[in-house]
């Protein structure tokens, strides 16, 4: 078993690193517009907390909307693919095209075509977040062993029964794992889209704050926005991890139950 103090090791290491960073910046006299120390970054946040938190909320709304959209789209298309080989042949190549096309390259087009700023950000983030949840769900729907499919056939199960009693439950852990990856990617997609859109003169998300602060050489504020983005990514990952754990535990899928003797 891990000793209790080991749990504090990451925080302790982080604090020591921050202290070393602050000391190095001060001792070497590095100007804040090159590399601000942690205290300057905290100062920049304290100077305008509402502005930065408002931008965080804006980015978060885009991220969550994109995640919900990509999950809905991913599950729907994965279901269509599992139901029909024709649908599979038609959908799969386009899903791969969507995955391999760099979002930075198509974001300007999306912004021009969609027009509405919020909708275009959501579309970009959805494109980035879509593939993991889609591919995982498709793999999960096909993951039930052949013998179980045979068993359902043998007992005359309808397609609906096979879907609801076998394929969807088998796909659940795959979907949740995909959703967790897509959660992180939705944030990345939202930020990339904001960068592109921001340079076009609208939007107010955290990425736009980073750009804006960069132009004004307000480097501590830039770092403050960056820290908020990282914390948001960690929070999204932790939240989806907790959701994953709670759902699978409720279903009895956890692996730490006591095994019975043979």
């Amino acid at each position, binding site marked *: 078993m891990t000793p209790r103090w080991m749990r504090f090791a990451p925080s302790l290491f982080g604090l020591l690193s921050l202290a070393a960073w602050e000391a190095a910046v001060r001792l070497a006299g590095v100007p804040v517009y090159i590399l601000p120390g942690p205290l300057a970054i905290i100062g920049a946040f304290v100077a305008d907390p509402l502005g930065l938190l408002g931008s965080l909320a804006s980015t978060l709304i885009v991220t969550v909307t994109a995640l919900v959209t990509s999950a809905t789209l991913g599950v729907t298309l994965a279901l269509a693919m599992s139901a029909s080989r024709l649908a599979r042949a038609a959908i799969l190549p386009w899903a791969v095209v969507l995955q391999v096309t760099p979002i930075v390259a198509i974001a300007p087009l999306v912004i021009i075509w969609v027009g509405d700023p919020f909708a275009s950000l959501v579309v970009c983030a959805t494109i980035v977040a879509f593939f993991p949840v889609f591919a995982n769900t498709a793999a999960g729907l096909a993951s039930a*062993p052949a*013998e*179980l499919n*045979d*068993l*359902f*056939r*043998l*007992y*005359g*199960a309808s397609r609906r*029964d096979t879907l609801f*009693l*076998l394929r969807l*439950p088998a796909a*659940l852990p795959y979907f949740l794992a995909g959703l967790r990856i897509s959660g992180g990617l939705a944030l990345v997609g939202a930020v990339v889209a904001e960068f592109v859109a921001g340079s076009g003169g609208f939007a107010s998300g955290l990425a736009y704050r980073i750009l804006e602060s960069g132009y004004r050489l307000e480097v501590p504020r830039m770092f403050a926005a960056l820290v908020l983005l990282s914390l948001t990514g960690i929070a999204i990952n932790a939240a989806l991890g907790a959701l994953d754990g709670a759902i699978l535990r409720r*279903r*009895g*899928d956890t*692996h730490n*139950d*006591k*095994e*019975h*003797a*043979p």
Partner: protein
Amino acid sequence: MLSINSVGRRFPDGTVALRDASLRLEGGDFIVLLGPSGCGKSTLLRLISGLDRPNSGSLDWDGGRAPAAGEVGFVFQDATLLPWATAEDNVFLPLRLRGVSRQSALPDVHAALERVGLAGFETSRPRQLSGGMRMRVSIARALVTRPRLLLMDEPFAALDEFTRHRLQTDLIALWRSIGCTIVFVTHSIYEAAFLARRVVLMTPRPGRIAREIASKLVAGPETRLEPAYAALVADITHAMERALGHGELDPA
């Protein structure tokens, strides 16, 4: 119950899995299909279950009617349980698929679990059960619809020897009390000799039925120590070697 007449099965890749196989199943029989890998025994089982269709020959059910869903039970080599469902829900599955409500199915589900010695494990999930217990749940699931015919495809092959012996003894007791027909696939001569009323020897490339050996052994916990069992094992071994063309190894 069923006449299998000159049945053949060729897979799309050209492999002849089974050629010209004929067999008669009677009600209450315990038939063991015995042979090495690739002799078509699992294919024959799938043809009987209706999961696969022959390319030639026919399966003629007495009365001219193929069994309805639930009249044939199938036990696979793996327990093939739904990992997220309890033992009770796994056994309930075949009844649920036939539209039986949970309320009216529960007495049958509990009776089936009790038959296989798993009373008290209704709420356990497969992961919490040993390999032998999982196989018992699988057998209970096959029995819950009260099938006329029970098909078993090497169900004990993945289990340790002690568990296998116990399950074999329990299966014989179950078969005697239920009285359904069992077709059991194995590649173990010892298992075949212990279980079967009739051992059907099969040989590979292409899969075919070589011969049948009848057994009068009354299997019980002490059977494996009896000379009659050893003699039957020897008979089957010699017949199998002759069928496989290993005559030179035969001391007779």
